């Protein structure tokens, strides 16, 4: 759910021109007997991203005569999984699709997908599988098998307004490094008018829709892990988790440097542009959006540390569907391998703002030039070594919903942090007992 209502698939920078020119030639007619790979991709029809994907499909076909990828633009992540699973249940799923990495257990439980291990044959294949950042593989592997291949991945970072820092007497080049520092900075950055009404908040962490994801940006530094890799247990009622939630609540109620109640995810970047808040937490996917719309110099930083540093990853993986024909699956595997080479992963990252998924992508000339011009883009990469898996379990959406409800209840003051988390733990344990 992490990217549903964001300007996440944003404007595309350079590189689009060349690819768009490619698509303008039109898709060549399919050769007789060519196998066609249907590919569900989570974006609404039209717009720059579809041009990029069309360009990839065409490039692949050029390199592999006889194979054709047919992208089908299926809407949001949620729309896409609904369409893919419904198609799976009716017996004709897509061959491959990009879906949320957290949907892995759901797809396994529905017996909708096959592991990639079946297609790994050569040494080259093995090297390719090892080429991704381990942080991204955490949400792609379970039970010793690889079920998803990272493609459009993101993580949470802190954006800060350098002008506001200067006005508050802070060093505009130094973002907060720890929780205590973030609180202290936020206190200096919170401005009130004569009536005591706040005109600029110090910091805001959005909590609508999928608060669990941003909450992991607090629990990870607090030293908590929310679930086991098998996705059968959660640990919502651990003391570190309560500490993390209490810190979030205290920012609003005790220190009064964070807006009260639930903060809307969708309007958070706008709040930042309007200077209503000096520091925001949001996805790296908003990087281009902020770059294009912030009328002041801004910085991008790793999330502040408590016991350690850390942020969850997010975003979408490639999956291969079980009910597709073997030949189609093989072709899809070839396509996925083709689209995730170091160069293409780098280009995709530059064009869209997603984090390039392989370390060697960052050594490509195109990426080096991009980072030199726009160093903020590298922050997400630097955070990856300390990043952890996004919360994902069996019956994933139900379990995360239990946590979301608890977080919102605690943030609106309906329940104390510890009680809310205990309730979520009980509910999640009840849901997960069937998967033990």
């Amino acid at each position, binding site marked *: 759910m992490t990217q549903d209502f964001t300007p996440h698939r944003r404007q595309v920078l350079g590189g689009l021109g060349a690819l768009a020119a490619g698509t303008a030639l039109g898709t060549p007619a399919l050769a007789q007997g060519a196998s066609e790979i249907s590919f569900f991709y989570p974006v609404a029809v039209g717009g720059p991203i579809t041009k990029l994907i069309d360009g990839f499909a065409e490039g692949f076909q050029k390199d592999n005569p006889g194979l054709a990828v047919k992208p089908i633009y299926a809407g949001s992540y949620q729309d896409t999984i609904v369409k893919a699973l419904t198609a799976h249940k009716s017996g004709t799923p897509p061959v491959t699709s990009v879906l949320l990495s957290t949907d892995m257990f759901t797809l396994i439980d529905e017996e909708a997908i096959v592991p990639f291990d079946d297609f790994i044959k050569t040494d080259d294949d093995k090297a390719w599988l090892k080429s991704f950042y381990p942080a991204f593989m955490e949400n792609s592997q379970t039970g010793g098998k690889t079920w998803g291949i990272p493609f459009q991945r993101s993580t949470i970072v802190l954006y800060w307004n350098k002008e506001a820092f200067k006005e508050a007497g802070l060093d505009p080049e130094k973002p907060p490094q720890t929780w205590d520092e973030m609180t202290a900075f936020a206190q200096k950055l919170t401005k009130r008018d004569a009536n005591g*009404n706040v005109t600029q908040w110090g910091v805001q962490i959005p909590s609508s829709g999928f608060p669990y994801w941003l909450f992991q940006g607090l629990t990870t530094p607090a030293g908590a892990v929310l679930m086991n890799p098998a996705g059968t247990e959660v640990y919502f009622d651990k003391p570190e988790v309560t500490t993390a939630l209490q810190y979030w609540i205290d920012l609003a109620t005790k220190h009064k440097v964070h807006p009260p109640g639930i903060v809307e995810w969708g309007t958070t970047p706008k709040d930042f542009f309007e200077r209503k808040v000096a520091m925001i937490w949001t996805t790296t996917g908003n990087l281009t959006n902020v770059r294009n719309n912030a009328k002041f110099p801004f910085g991008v930083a790793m999330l502040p540390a408590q016991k350690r540093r850390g942020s969850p990853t997010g975003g979408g993986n490639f999956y291969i569907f079980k009910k597709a024909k073997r030949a189609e699956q093989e072709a899809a595997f070839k396509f996925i391998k083709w689209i995730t080479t170091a160069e293409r992963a780098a280009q995709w990252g530059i064009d869209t703002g997603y984090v390039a998924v392989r370390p060697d992508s960052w050594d490509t000339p195109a990426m080096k030039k991009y980072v030199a011009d726009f160093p903020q883009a590298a922050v997400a990469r630097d955070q990856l070594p300390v990043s952890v898996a996004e919360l994902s379990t069996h019956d994933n959406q139900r379990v995360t919903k239990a946590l979301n409800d608890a977080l919102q209840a605690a943030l609106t003051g309906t329940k104390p942090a510890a009680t809310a988390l205990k309730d979520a733990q009980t509910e999640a344990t009840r849901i997960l007992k069937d998967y033990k």
Partner: protein
Amino acid sequence: MKRFSLAIQGWLLILPALSVLMVFTHWPALATFIDSFYSTPKGRRPSRFVGLSNYEQMLSDPVFWKAAINNLIFVAGTVPLSIALALIMALWVNDKLKGRTALRMAFFTPTILPMIAVANIWLFFFTPQYGLLEQITGLFGAPSWPWLGSDKTALFCVIIVAVWKEAGFFMIFYLAALQQISPTLGEAASLEGASRWTFFRRVQWPLLMPTTLFILINAMINGFRLVDHVFVLTHGGPDNSSTLLLYYIYEVGFKYWDTAYAATLTTVLLATLALIAAIQYGILERRVHYR
């Protein structure tokens, strides 16, 4: 024999429409009802008959009760308000005043706009500090409030958007009905020296009753059906405080993939709607004045 063939001809004529209705409305409703007595198939585990256990699960599901109560508040909030607004707007634009076409258009605009697009605009209206709402309340020095982010006001915001969306649509029906009322009645009333209020209360309102009944039923049904904006505005949050039944059904069906439980909830929703329609047609209709 002739009559018999006439009957067959009649059935054949309505067959296309009937079959479409059967395939897309009646059969799914029936299938949903049947599915509610079975468990959800998962991978290798096929669905099996579980009797009433889905219904038992529902009765002990706090989110269901929360959604049901919210839905009642939503209906109680949207129905009278949107009907009253529709009537006032219709009476206004029924008069001969300058620019009334533009006014009618303005009132009708919310109906034409897609709900999701509209909800995205309202999202920014409700935004604390710089949203339209707070720009106005801010002039009076009111403190900032997280309208969508508080369990005290989220449902209220969802109701406001629904009323705004619905009123213009209902206005059209009232307007059409008002234009059907013979002008001679108005002339007679003014000759008698009846006040405008008396004319409305004793002449227009009774004559509008069939329309009101029609709108009432539609408004009630929409009260259970209109959830698009919840997806954008609140996602049912905070902590389910703005969850409505249909939104919850979507979550259960297409996020949790618990299709059997979703079928159970749908059956309850269908039964509720059927009951409302039956009550309205059965009881209210007798008290409605038809010419």
